[in-house]
């Protein structure tokens, strides 16, 4: 009376039990107010940061005359830098290039601000020299050889960059006097803030905040709430293995969380791509970073989802069990900024997830370390700012959020290894969680 059942392909098969559980879970989330509250809070939190990022990108950063040569100390109308180039005495009002024949017109002081920007080959690694004296005040003809070569590397007017393999970082640049001493703050700061923002929002915003709190609030109750509401009875009385219920619930949860993360990442990525500094109208190079951030967050939500769902299954107050984990992961996240190679990080989830982002940042911005030390050096201490440092704006923030991968292997390998480890963690937690669920007596 009935046609023989169609042969099941994978899709028809998935359309049944597992698919049904996953679809059910997604629809359940959609109808819950708390889901939207949590997702909305995440959205608002991320977007407040984005707002400030965009604002800071629009802001003018005041150009500082780091070496003080735009000032006209003697009041003859010629900035110090111009006088120095022409060999007149900057402190003598009677000595200025206007006395030359033909007289040389005085430069506008602005010309002597940010006039000696960085000229570093950022692909360098190991002992190398860089830098070019754009304004020519180092290469003055009347300077002696030793004046031109303070760092005694037998190259006039250069900067020695020394990469310390042991510590894995660049040591303080050893510069000849008056080389690259008046960098363009705005150019550096925007780039640095942009990078710092990407790293900060990727690591703290996405991987930590979204990656832990979304699972904490959404996944802990996946099984537990059903058990508490005793609605699980309906599902358990059907021919579906509890392991599959567990998996189906997680898949449904990911069906809500992953699109959310991808959407958020894409939107923030596009905004930052347009708003970010650079010559082009869009920073295509950063897309790699955003892919890494989204990918790392997806993996983090997967692993934490499994973990918190298992904890929720284990005990009625699973969220109490989950909170110490969240605290531990926060500690690990903070630790990873300072000591990315600490072996204790290998026992966390966030350590591996952040590794992916760090590795991606090294791929996208290959000379991150040099870039940071450039900003920390900031042109030498000739005209220190108010606090006595020469650090450029943004360098400290970038320094705080950037870190090495910590595995000691190439960035691509780091991404692969971290991904595999996270997937392995997820699989183990799935087995553990479904074993707990399977052995649970439910009244």
């Amino acid at each position, binding site marked *: 009376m009935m046609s023989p059942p169609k042969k099941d392909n994978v899709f028809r098969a998935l359309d049944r039990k597992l698919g049904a559980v996953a679809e059910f879970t997604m629809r359940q989330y959609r109808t819950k*107010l708390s889901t939207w509250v949590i997702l909305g809070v995440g959205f608002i939190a991320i977007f407040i940061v984005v707002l400030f990022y965009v604002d800071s990108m629009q802001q003018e950063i005041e150009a500082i005359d780091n070496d003080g040569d735009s000032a006209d100390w003697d009041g003859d109308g010629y900035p110090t830098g111009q006088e120095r180039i022409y060999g007149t005495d900057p402190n003598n009002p009677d000595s200025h290039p206007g006395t030359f024949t033909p007289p040389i017109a005085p430069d506008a002081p602005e010309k002597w601000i940010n006039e000696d920007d960085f000229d570093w080959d950022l692909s360098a690694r190991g002992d190398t020299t860089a830098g070019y004296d754009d304004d020519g005040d180092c290469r003055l003809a009347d300077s002696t050889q030793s004046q031109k070569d303070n760092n005694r590397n037998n190259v006039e007017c250069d900067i020695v960059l020394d990469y310390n393999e042991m510590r894995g970082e660049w040591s303080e640049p050893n510069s000849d006097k008056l080389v690259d001493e008046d960098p363009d703050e705005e150019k550096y700061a925007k780039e640095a803030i942009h990078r710092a923002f990407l790293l900060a929002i990727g690591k703290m915003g996405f991987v930590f905040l979204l990656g832990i709190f979304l699972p904490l609030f959404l996944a802990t109750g996946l099984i537990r709430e059903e058990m508490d509401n005793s609605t699980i009875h309906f599902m358990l009385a059907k021919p579906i293995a509890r392991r599959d219920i567990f998996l189906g619930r997680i898949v449904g949860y990911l069906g809500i969380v992953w699109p959310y993360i991808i959407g958020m990442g894409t939107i923030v990525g596009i905004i930052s791509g347009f708003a970010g500094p650079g010559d082009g109208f869009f920073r295509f190079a950063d897309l790699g970073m955003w892919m890494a951030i989204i990918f790392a967050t997806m993996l983090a939500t997967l692993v934490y989802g499994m973990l918190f769902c298992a904890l929720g299954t284990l005990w009625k107050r699973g969220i109490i069990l989950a909170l110490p984990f969240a605290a531990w992961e926060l500690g690990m996240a903070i630790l990873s900024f300072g000591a990315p190679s600490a072996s204790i990080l290998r026992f966390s989830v966030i350590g591996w997830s952040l590794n992916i982002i760090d590795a991606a940042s090294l791929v996208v911005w290959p000379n991150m370390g040099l870039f940071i030390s450039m900003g920390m050096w900031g042109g030498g201490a000739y005209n220190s700012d108010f606090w006595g440092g020469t650090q450029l704006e943004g360098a400290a923030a970038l320094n705080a959020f950037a870190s090495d991968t910590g595995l000691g292997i190439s960035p691509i390998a780091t991404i692969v290894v971290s991904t595999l480890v996270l997937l392995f963690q997820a699989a183990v937690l799935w087995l553990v969680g479904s074993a707990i669920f399977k052995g649970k007596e439910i009244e």
Partner: protein
Amino acid sequence: MSEDEENSPQPQPQPLAQPQPIAAAPQLPIPTTPQPVQPVQPVQQMQPVQPVQQIQPVQPVQQIQPVQPVQQIQPVQPVQQIQPVQPVQQIHQVATDDVQMATAETPVTGQGRMDTAWGSSEGDEDISEMASIGQTDSGEIFKQNYEPWRGELNPRWMRNWAILRHHILGIFKKGHRPWGVPTRIFLVLVFFASLSDAALTLLSSLIGDSEFHSMWGVNRDNLYGHVLGFFPRNVMYYPIVAALLVGGVISEDRLHGTSALYFSRPINRFDYIGMKYASVAFIQAIIIILTLFLYYLTEIMVYGRGWAWIVDTFPIFLGALMGGILLIITYTSIGLALSSVSKGKFFPGIGLLAIILGTKTLAIIVKNLFDREILYLLSPYDCLAHVGQTLVRTQPTYDQYSWTWSLASLIVMNAIALYVLSSRVSSMEVTRE
């Protein structure tokens, strides 16, 4: 429908219909002493003997009147008008006493003799009364006595007072709203911790060290600090106190259905919200405001401050008081709004902490990354601090921004919270569709 269930006395037509008791099928346990006594007898659950003190003490005079009981003892007849008193069980009481007296001859304890003596000395009237009504139905057993009650119900303020009392007294003793034990312990701890500045003031007066006193005595910074400042209080104490308190206040009514208990009584939604709000705020006030008073009082007492000093410092004190009140109002509004949108007691508590601490964290990130201040607008705590600093006139943290923005932000937060609260409470159900 199989129509052929034949003469088999078994009702089930299908072959496997009968349960098959397998090997170890149990013997039918036949009760050894069957008791075909009238089984449907709810009597034993009822206490026929009413404790004397339960009798309405309202108009005891009328109870002696022998006439009324006679017409009331008719057990079947529905009493037309409710009699002000209920002599029914009064009579009944006498009757049972009498029966007990007659049958209980065995006990020879002193107590028994006393009972007998008591019964005989005062029994004359009762027996005569019994006799007069006994003809109607002396053998009547009252399973249940419906006790009418003719008291007056107090007006609205009394009902509201009941809600308030129920919630506040629950902190101190059993029988009222059951607050969790951790909550109560934490409240006590915070109360004493909040008294630490009063204690240190006391200590400084005992030592007589003026430097010590300048650290802990009453001054602008310390008054501000008592309410809003100092690290453990602003992050740990008061937000957690608020979180613990608001947790289940409304959400548990929803969870347990006890909202029906309120709304099926003459309590309107406004009173319900208002009293819940007031009780939560009051408990917080005990901790924050009361300790502030005690602190101020300690200073006056132990240093013998005169009127001049009081007049000098009173504006500061008032400022701190206002700050505290603002704090209580804000935390309560936000917390109750969260409580009204959820069903458990964890979500509102964690949510309140997340709002207070989360906005702070977010603002710190923004400050570090972009060097912009948004705390004074975003975080409830920092808004309060900003306004509080202005009220107490201490050194403001956000001196480049006007405190009115913070105040406006506070008002917006409260308004949103109260709107959520009222709209959610007005949709709470009594019955279910």
